[in-house]
């Protein structure tokens, strides 16, 4: 079946502009995660959606970052007034709910470059 997809694949924006990054999870997966991978760094957790529960926003680095998940499926990560330090690869992952523990399936990411 189809995996996690993300769009755009690459995004170049000017400092101060707003950007939206999209994630389409695997159908039926109830959990969705956003991570950020900066150059030379590991993945940094940003936000986690689980079903209809309030999202876990504990990883968002500033109030310029926000995310929503509509209808329990597609998610959009928005970065307002982008800064050069926001340049990174943004990865989305989805996960099935279940009694046993399941893996997180990752999308190919969006590479964001802020000039």
């Amino acid at each position: 079946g189809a995996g996690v997809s993300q769009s755009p694949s690459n995004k170049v924006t000017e400092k101060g502009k707003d950007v939206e990054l999209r994630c389409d999870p695997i159908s039926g997966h109830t959990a969705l995660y956003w991570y950020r991978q900066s150059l030379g760094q590991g993945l940094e957790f940003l936000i986690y959606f689980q079903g209809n529960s309030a999202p876990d926003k504990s990883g968002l680095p500033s109030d310029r970052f926000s995310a929503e998940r509509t209808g329990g499926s597609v998610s959009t990560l928005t970065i307002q007034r982008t800064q050069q330090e926001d340049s990174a690869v943004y990865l989305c992952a989805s996960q099935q709910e279940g009694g046993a523990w399941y893996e997180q399936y990752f999308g190919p990411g969006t590479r964001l470059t802020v000039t």
Partner: protein
Amino acid sequence: AQTVTQSQPEMSVQEAETVTLSCTYDTSESDYYLFWYKQPPSRQMILVIRQEAYKQQNATENRFSVNFQKAAKSFSLKISDSQLGDAAMYFCAYRSGDKGGSQGNLIFGKGTKLSVKP
């Protein structure tokens, strides 16, 4: 807070040889899960192997195995009979199990870049 440390930024191995990637972690939790992910140039993160902390037996997946030392908080990955397709970034990751259930965010190390020489 939990942390994951990978002390080898880069490693190299000859094709068909064996290589071990190191990972240590810090936690005060008793229930957790550990993972190794592979990230090729395509950026797609792929789960290689996983280990439940409560299991003493080391996980094995074909050519991939782990050496899980809970007391030492060490979780190394051994790749046997290395292949050219194994070349990638490898990330060690931790997930808390204290919240129960099967979900929760992963905490990653900074990765080890593995090169495989023909």
